[in-house]
């Protein structure tokens, strides 16, 4: 059962990574990279590493995404 979940999460994170690299809309790409971090935190949980999973969920998908959006917002504000 865990193996099926792990395969599903792994494929989903790879798709998220592909979207993050290749989508031309930057907001979509940033959200997709936050999604990769979220899936990675589930993989850490399946690998019996709850400490790492908590840290990755709080930092990787929370704070990093928001910092990207702040920078993107400032750049868009300049271009207007």
């Amino acid at each position: 059962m865990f193996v099926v979940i792990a395969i599903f999460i792994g494929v989903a994170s790879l798709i998220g990574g592909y979207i993050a690299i290749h989508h031309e809309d930057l907001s979509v790409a940033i959200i997709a990279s936050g999604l990769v971090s979220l899936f990675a935190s589930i993989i850490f949980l399946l690998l019996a590493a709850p400490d790492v999973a908590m840290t990755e969920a709080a930092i990787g998908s929370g704070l990093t995404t928001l910092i990207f959006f702040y920078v993107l917002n400032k750049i868009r504000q300049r271009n207007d």
Partner: protein
Amino acid sequence: MIKKWIILGILAGMGLIFFDLFSAFRGNETLGKTADYYARHGAEEVGASNIVTAIVVTYRGFDTLGEVTILFLTAAIISFVLKIRQEDILPNRPIRITSELLDSASQVIVPVIFMVGIYIFVNGHLTPGGGFPGGAVIASGVLLMILSNPNFSVSHKVIAWVESISGVGFVLLGVMGILFAGGFLDNRVLGLGDFGKLFSAGIIPFIYSFIGLKVGAELSNILGAISHAQNEKN
């Protein structure tokens, strides 16, 4: 065109290296020597039920001190690079007013988020978690405050005090290890106490609280600097 082939070549080389590493990977059936030592002696030597905490704070505490220093350096460089002169600040930036829902919900939720963060790092030696996730949770509470009130600015005075007190406290507790126990950052200064209780494992709860406060203050400082940079002219 030639650029594309170079990129493909680099990727193929890295893929070959990774495939080699992957095909040599057999998975583990037992622990390695170092990990075996930590698992056998961690509970009696350090007294923390979370072995990861025992390694981060005591066995490799010096690494953690260096890591916190690196984080402090990045926060300081970010504040330095994003410094805005007084005449470059936009006097009245058009601000979208936050909705009533976010505004009143954040007043209720932010104290709870801070409490969860403090709970995570105080119990770092008993449950999963510790200073780093706890500090990140506190920083996300600060982020919610910034998002709900765009004019909110992170107070530099508070950040500087929290950061210097926790940094000095971390090093002082480490030096107390030299004076009263086996060496720098040795946790047996206070006695190990009952295994599995909140006040056990020597000075680990105090050191991890200092680390949590320091990480929270540094991440909040980064967030505050980047959100303050939105006010810059161009």
